[in-house]
């Protein structure tokens, strides 16, 4: 069965101008949102602090949990419902300057007391307790940034060795593009920036390059064939020839990500969200952004084919 009819010829290169404009708008929105929210909404892993995940028997609501804890002398920074409505799972968060390790220990005892003594909270249980000292957090941010940068450098070098510089530049700009827009989506939806999100970003980088390379590979092959086609035409042919693969693979990845998003449980939810955005943006950038950069760079250097 053919998804794309053989001989289909869509003028991708001709649409690159508009596509790049769309990319620029998305990037500006992303950066704007990050500035408006004063940077990413760092999770406790980075800022230090504590997180306690509880499961209650009744649907108590975040406000009541918050006021009960206020009264108990442990005002939380945030109480958030996680998972699906019927799960009655909540995340209680304390910021680093509020909580020392010993405090979280005594808080936990207090919480256990509340959950056995108060009618509304009866039958609740503590699912998870996370405490992260501020020192570890600062180191994690550093490590996260280094690993993303190193990832880019590694890819740049590999693509440069296997292709030529223009392609490496296109691949890296495309992946920076995908990372920034995914970050923007996380920021716009006000999701927390956690360690799992870092893992998701690196996976997106990997996916984005993977997708880009397959088109590049075809461009290189078509360049070797010679003939009288211009570079723009070669790019257009290559994108068209790999189009079914691009759509089919993105679809399979998208299918499993949807499964993860809806069925993977509360912890995986945001991870799946980031990946879904990343795959969509990554597919778009492989087709439009990466090749546009290669075309632009080669024209600038006066290269024809």
């Amino acid at each position, binding site marked *: 069965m053919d998804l794309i009819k053989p001989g289909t010829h869509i003028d991708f290169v001709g649409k690159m101008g508009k596509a790049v404009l769309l990319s620029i708008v998305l990037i500006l929105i992303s950066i704007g949102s990050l500035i408006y929210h004063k940077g990413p909404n760092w999770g406790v892993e980075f800022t230090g602090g504590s997180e306690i995940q509880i499961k209650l028997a009744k649907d108590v609501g975040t406000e009541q949990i918050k006021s009960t804890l206020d009264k108990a002398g442990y005002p939380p920074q945030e109480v958030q419902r996680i998972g699906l409505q019927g799960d009655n799972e909540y995340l209680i968060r304390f910021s680093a300057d509020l909580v020392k390790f010993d405090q979280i220990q005594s808080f936990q005892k207090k919480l256990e007391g509340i959950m056995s003594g108060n009618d509304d909270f009866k039958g609740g249980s503590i699912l998870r307790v996370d405490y992260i000292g501020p020192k570890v957090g600062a180191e994690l941010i550093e490590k996260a940034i280094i690993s993303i940068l190193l990832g880019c450098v590694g890819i740049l070098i590999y693509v440069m060795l296997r292709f030529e510089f223009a392609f490496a530049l296109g691949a890296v700009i495309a992946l920076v593009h995908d990372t920034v827009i995914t970050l923007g989506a996380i920021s716009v939806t006000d999701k927390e920036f956690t360690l799992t999100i870092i*893992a998701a970003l690196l996976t997106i980088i990997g996916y984005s390059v993977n997708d880009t390379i397959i088109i590049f590979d075809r461009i290189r092959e078509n360049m070797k064939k010679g003939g009288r086609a211009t570079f723009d035409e070669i790019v257009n042919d290559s994108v068209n020839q790999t189009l079914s693969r691009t759509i089919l693979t993105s679809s399979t990845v998208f299918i499993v990500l949807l499964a993860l998003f809806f069925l993977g449980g509360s912890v995986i939810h945001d991870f799946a969200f980031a990946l879904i955005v990343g795959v969509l943006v990554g597919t778009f950038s492989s087709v439009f952004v990466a090749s546009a950069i290669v075309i632009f760079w080669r024209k600038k250097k006066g290269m024809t084919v």
Partner: protein
Amino acid sequence: MRASRGWIITILVFALLSALLLIPTVAGDALPGWWGKVFPDRGIRLGLDLRGGIFLLIGVDTEKAVDHELNGIDDFMTQELKSEKILIKGSEIKGDNLTLQFFTKEDLDKGLKVAEENFSDRADINESDLSLSFALKGSYLDDIQVRAIDQVKQVIENRVQELGLVEPSIQKAGADRILIQVPGASEKDRQRIIDIIKRSAVLEFKIVRDTGADQDVLMAKYGVKSPDELKSQGLMLVPGDTGTENEKFFIATSDSPVTGESLSDARLIFDEYGRPAVGFSFKGEGASKFGALTEKNIGQRLAIVLDGTIKSAPTIQERITSQGRITGTFTTEEAKDLALVLRSGALPVPVTVEQERTVGPSLGKDSIESGMLSMAVGGVLVIIFMIFFYRLQGVVADLALALNMLFILGFLSAFGITLTLPGIAGLVLTMGMAVDGNIIILERIKEELRLGKSPVAAIDAGYARSLWTVLDANITTLITALILFWFGTGPIKGFAATVSIGIISTVFSNVIVARVITNLIYQDRKVPVLSI
């Protein structure tokens, strides 16, 4: 072209090995006893987030180890010069430096001689005005820190092991941290584990000179205003926790000739009133030192100092050599744990809890279930999708995918890589991307067919031309996964490991397994049309 027999055998061996490695994961305790003797009996290790348990990152204060070292030099110099009737005016420790001040130039010269004789190997010694400074050498500094963290790890290992928990893991994490993981630990264990780990357990024995309810009044008796000034009299102020109002503070000798290091054993005992207490005994040299100390001070009170606080101060009735006890207001459990930490030795430097994660067993169970469910649903959808688009070749790709999953899980089990929740997510994602290689190859074969090639020639060309595309695409992904593995900690590392193994196994499945199956189907047959 024929399906190479060598590859068929290789694939079958891999599949069999993977299956064997996975049987313990599925069967659990139902395995017969002889299994472990013939085959590996440990399956996939589940992370703390999946099975529940405690994860603790302990920061080791290695700076304190440097302080101890400099204090040691200070003490040695003071003692050594005292025997030559030279008094040191003052001393100061700042970072990696110790400075000693002298009264006269003559004293300084003698001090320099003693210093050079004893410490020139580990410190740079400089004189200026009337002071002598010791700056620890870089390599020696590293040594001190490495030794400190090794000792802390050893002590914590002893302590955690004695608690009798299942499979605790204690590892060094970086230059100044220790990672402790106790899977399956209950909420009740948690508090106890943390208390036992944090306990310094420095045990010292001193002789009591005086006691009082107020530290200022007590110090005034000795004509000093601050605890530091007591030092020149060979005394120090120690807080007391003996339960008596007028014994809140003690003045005691500052040196402790016997310490917890000389203990041979410590255990829970009950005193004459049936209250829990800790009994201890000394080994060889410790026993004779303790004998000498008690003999010299009969009629005086012996201060038993634990972590800087006097726990009890019995009057010495007679020379004691081997046995002693610490009484106090303990519960049985507390006395038992105190005995445990004394037995396992003192922490050479203080530690702090830098990160803690406790996952209840129910969350772990939920996570596994939702992880498995999403994997099953995702997998089935991908399988249907592939058959819908590629018919028989889709079935081949699905077979390769199933074998791929088997290989990956077998790998995880073989290398003892811990499967975490992000790891499961990584597996689900791998499933989505695993068919990519096959899609590239199958699309290529279709193109070749359109060019008018025969089915077998199209298959050959499709595989040959796609090889580097598949490799290039996957190597770049592998680069990011490996970097993530290098830099990641805890659950992220597990995720990166799973993805890395996934990529390698996927390339193998795409390029070799699918090819071999395809060849088996079309081998020696004149196929007019490919089912693709």
